[in-house]
């Protein structure tokens, strides 16, 4: 650096003031929340949230609870991976919950068995469409995601209507599709291979694999760079020759596919698909990303942050159950945390612009 000697004027730039990676703050918040629950647990319940306090398990941690914490956020976490990209792009997506409902219904109707212990499947959707290889419902599901997400993207990129409105429309529309598909009837009894997709800890592995994949894509590919660039300054991106419209379609399509994957895992886990599946999932997913430090103004955030945000979410839900508090309080606290995270983000932005 020292060979650049032309710098003039009284410009100072304190390298030490370089901000810590925001993920550290979120990790700190996670630790703080765990500590609060541990404290309350010791005080009120006489036991630990995450650690093996009464030697009931043969380890340091309460492994069963740790598994539950991760498992219960992994399906919405998959949606949150898409929400992260959409919000970094500077948009918002309200439709994933309904896409989950519609995709679960459609995919499940291609994953059914013909007979259950000798009896004909009473829920069979299409005569003759049964016992298909597992790849068929997976591809059908992904197609649903591509369609729904693609429509979102095309509406937002080419008709210039605000993402909030476009995806609100898709939210209502896809929920309608979910109800219409089987006239409100649940679709059940999937093949063993389909049921395996959501059994045990498989959802966690799928979530982790997808998180690693999109962490890589956002950080090391042109796609990731352009997503951040458009969210940061759409006008500058356009002037720099980035095909903003095409890129938006791609990002919303990927978000739709991730919602579809969540639907496949969820319907597999539940062994049934119902039209009401996934209601409000989009809000939980957005909450995870916001808690994970993704800025609603666009341009900032990371997959790692969102994964940490999802864990914070899981710890809070488990912590409330652990303290035997009503679910009502859970939702209230969730609401407070979401608003708190956005206020924090606003404060961060203001501080940044003041520094200029």
């Amino acid at each position, binding site marked *: *650096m020292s*060979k*650049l*000697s*032309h*710098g*003039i*004027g*009284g*410009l100072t*730039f304190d*390298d030490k003031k*370089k*901000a810590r990676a925001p993920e550290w703050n979120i990790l700190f918040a996670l630790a703080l929340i765990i500590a609060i629950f541990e404290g309350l647990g010791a005080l009120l319940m006489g036991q630990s949230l995450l650690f093996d306090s009464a030697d009931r398990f043969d380890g340091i941690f309460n492994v069963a609870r740790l598994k539950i914490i991760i498992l219960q956020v992994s399906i919405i976490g998959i949606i949150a991976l898409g929400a992260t990209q959409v919000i970094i792009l500077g948009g918002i997506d309200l439709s994933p919950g309904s896409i989950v409902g519609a995709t679960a219904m459609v995919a499940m109707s291609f994953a059914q068995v013909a007979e259950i212990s000798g009896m004909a499947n009473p829920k069979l959707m299409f005569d003759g469409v049964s016992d298909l290889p597992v790849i068929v419902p997976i591809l059908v599901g992904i197609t649903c995601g591509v369609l729904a997400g693609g429509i979102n993207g095309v509406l937002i990129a080419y008709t210039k209507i605000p993402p909030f409105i476009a995806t609100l429309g898709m939210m209502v529309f896809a929920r309608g599709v979910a109800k219409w598909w089987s006239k409100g009837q649940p679709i059940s009894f999937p093949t063993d291979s389909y049921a395996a997709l959501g059994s045990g800890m498989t959802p966690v592995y799928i979530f982790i694999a997808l998180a690693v994949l999109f962490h890589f*894509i956002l950080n*090391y*590919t*042109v*796609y990731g*760079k*352009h997503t*951040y*660039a458009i*969210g*940061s*300054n759409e*006008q*500058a*991106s356009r*002037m*720099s*020759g*980035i095909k903003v419209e095409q*890129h938006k379609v*791609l990002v919303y399509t990927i978000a739709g596919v991730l919602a579809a994957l969540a639907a496949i895992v969820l319907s597999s886990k539940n062994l049934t698909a119902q039209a009401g599946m996934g209601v409000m999932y989009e809000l939980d997913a957005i909450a995870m990303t916001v808690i994970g430090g993704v800025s609603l103004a666009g*341009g*900032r955030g990371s997959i790692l942050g969102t994964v940490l945000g999802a864990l914070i979410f899981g710890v809070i839900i488990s912590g409330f159950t652990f303290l035997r508090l009503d679910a009502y309080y859970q939702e209230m606290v969730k609401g407070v945390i979401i608003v708190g995270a956005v206020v924090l983000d606003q404060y961060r932005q203001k501080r*940044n*612009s003041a*520094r*200029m």
Partner: protein
Amino acid sequence: MLDYSTSDVVLETRDLTKHYGGVHALEGANFKIHQGEHVAIMGDNGAGKSTFVRQITAVEQRTRGDIILHGEPTHFDGPIKAREAGIETVFQNLALADDLDVPSNLFLGREKVKFKLGPFSILDNKAMRDATMAGLEKTGVKIPNILNSIQNMSGGQRQCVAIARTAAFHSKLTIMDEPTAALGVQETAQVENIIRTLKEQNEPVILISHNMRQVFDLMDRIVVFRRGRICANIKVDETLKPEDVVAYITGAKTGAEYPEAG
């Protein structure tokens, strides 16, 4: 004296005209800029300066006339095509993505890749960092850590990054639209230093500016626009007084002695 006769003309416009409906924003502009020449474009608001630049950079499509880049007539259908051909513009409102670091901004929209895979091509971050360092060195811009995001930098540093783009991409012609209008004294000095560096490197520059001192300090020639026409083409030397230029800008004097710019 500069030799204006030979083929080192970088950009030439002939009878460049732009009408917005009945408004003749630009009328018959004949203009030339040579290799290594720094030309100022001055004029009152609405005199046609920005219209002129918008035609060259293909932000708008001209009504008639020719734009000749290195002897080749051009018909760019958009600013991106003009940029690909080597006409780099530094805008007054910085065309930078605040949340990205310096190399990402320099290579925005034309990233270097290691492995081509459509939109999922793998970025070659090291090559972009190296090219950024080389570009900054060429312009003499000093930035402590190029991997910091742009938003933590001063206005001067940000404008320098925008100008450094032109050096990083070996552009044929750099156009600056009031690059220091929003900057403080020290930051302005920093940007002016870059313009001097470009002069030393024989890079041609068109500068739109209202700042008479800046133009007299840095530029070889002043082209004055008035009411959509080029009304004067003045060489900057010791005998030239700011009052003369002001007289052309306000229309008190008309430039009969320079009928054709260049």
